[in-house]
């Protein structure tokens, strides 16, 4: 099997319009949330992480952000590679502005057209695990030699349907993002466009080793302890690694009272000694289908530049796990996990050269 490298990355999120600016914001302690106002009795004002890029027209804004982020990832020189678009909300924000509701083929063509992409295009939509599943699919195509270059593009941009749905399910926080926090009260959503370029040709300091995706039908809107543990076990088996070589896990820890507890128990079941844990949710929010790509982009940049997320909230001691206050001294093997609707549990493994 050919080794697959993480050869480029790009990011636009609440922290900034590129990786450098996002890291600078993190060094300064992060950014304040904006507000998402939703109608109805269960609606109201919810904190929300907005990309600081103002354009009225959804399509125009999305096109510019996609182009910037893909260019930052170095993808414009590889437009004959495979493009994976990972999203849970597609272009529903444009529909809310009055654009016709298109089919998925038209959405795919639109995004590919923004990039003048000439290679194959796939759209993966598995709710919040979309971009991790896109990475796993890209990895499979590259390791089997079916492709040499792939770009995973996570897109989750402003719309009312997604936060409205989360609010209807009473999953949103009204106070702020508190991963594994003792007074966590829900998720804070955010926007992002993130790109990870995978290559078998262009070596880089991070290798993408593989991972696992486990669907558990017993909890369609939440995580399951059994599936969390199974996900880690299968991912390690797929990468021929043992638990004791994992130096860091970027957890989901979205601040959900129930799901954070389930995730923590699943971690304790999977690892005799739980590795240091990190969460990026209080830096950029939960960016749903794009969160895997966005958080891997930010995490690898943080590890390279010595920047570490600061957690101002108290962690729940009852969970039996905590978040690393400082960057671990030596990080070679990293796992990045996202849990989502549809009983979806996904994690991937990166290895630093």
């Amino acid at each position, binding site marked *: 099997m050919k080794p697959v490298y993480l050869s480029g990355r790009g990011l636009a999120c609440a922290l900034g319009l590129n990786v450098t600016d996002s890291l600078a914001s993190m060094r300064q302690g992060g950014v304040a949330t904006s507000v998402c106002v939703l*109608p109805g009795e269960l609606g109201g004002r919810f904190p929300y992480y907005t990309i600081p890029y103002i354009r009225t027209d959804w399509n125009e804004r999305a096109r510019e952000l996609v182009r910037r982020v893909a260019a930052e990832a170095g993808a414009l020189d590889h437009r004959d590679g495979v493009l994976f678009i990972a999203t849970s909300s597609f272009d529903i924000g444009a529909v809310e502005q009055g654009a016709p509701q298109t089919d998925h083929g038209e959405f795919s063509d639109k995004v590919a057209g923004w990039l003048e992409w000439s290679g194959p295009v796939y759209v993966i939509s598995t709710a919040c695990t979309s971009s991790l599943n896109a990475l796993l699919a890209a990895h499979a195509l590259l390791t089997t030699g079916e492709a040499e270059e792939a770009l995973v593009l996570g897109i989750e941009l402003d719309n009312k*349907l997604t936060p409205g749905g989360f609010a209807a399910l009473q999953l949103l926080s009204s106070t702020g993002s508190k991963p594994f926090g003792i007074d966590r009260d829900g998720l804070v959503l955010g926007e992002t466009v993130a790109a990870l370029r995978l290559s078998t040709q262009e070596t880089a300091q991070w290798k993408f080793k593989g991972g696992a995706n486990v*669907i558990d*039908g017993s909890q369609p809107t939440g995580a399951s302890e059994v599936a969390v543990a199974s996900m880690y076990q299968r991912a390690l088996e797929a990468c021929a690694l043992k638990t004791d070589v994992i130096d860091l896990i970027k957890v989901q820890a979205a601040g959900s009272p129930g799901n954070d507890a389930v995730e923590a128990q699943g971690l304790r079941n999977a690892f005799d000694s739980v590795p240091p844990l990190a969460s990026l949710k209080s830096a950029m929010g939960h960016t749903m289908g794009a969160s895997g790509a966005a958080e891997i982009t930010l995490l690898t940049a943080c590890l390279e530049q010595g920047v570490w997320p600061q957690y101002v909230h108290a962690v729940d001691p009852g969970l039996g796990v905590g978040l690393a206050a400082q960057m671990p001294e030596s990080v070679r093997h990293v796992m990045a996990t996202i849990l989502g609707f549809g009983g979806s549990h996904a994690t991937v493994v990166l290895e630093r050269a």
Partner: protein
Amino acid sequence: MKTFAITGRCIATPPPADWRERLAQMLGAKPRRIGIWAELGLYGALHCMADAGEGALPQDAQIWLGSCRGTHAATAVVLDQLRDDLPMPLAFLQTQPSQLLALLAARLSWNGSACFVAGADPQAMLRLASAQAWSDGLLLGWVEEMDGGSTNWLRLRPATVEGGDFVDAPKGELFASGLTHMRLEATGLQVRRAGQSNLGEQRAGW
């Protein structure tokens, strides 16, 4: 290149008029609050599994589901609800195609890898699925709610077939009836039709 034997199928374009009654029979009760697109998907997948003679999906099998319009109708309903209130929670969940993956996992007593591919080309989805497929094969489906509906599924198991009697398949052939095997070459899909010699087949363990 991997070769698959088709061990079960449901080709329903459109589904039979009484498909909802048949689904209720298979489930033992009428499904509730999951949306028509998901019901169609369940109907086709369970029909396909029954055709394959399997009540449960092996843990290393994968589910790949695709659609061009997906939960389009459910999404339109939620957009309408959002004009002056929050959507109904179950209505919002019906907009998420991954909910069908969870329903299938529960129904097929299975915990494993599943993926929804949004697009227009089932053959392209097969290429992704094939690259990740393990020894227990695939349950691969394509479901459309609009235009009379369709729910087409294949149970694919790895196979080794000696002999060169595969033929190039035209686009759209993936869910044609009468196929016994398929494989993806760089140039496209190749298929083996019923009635062709079946000598030398054995179960492959990738």
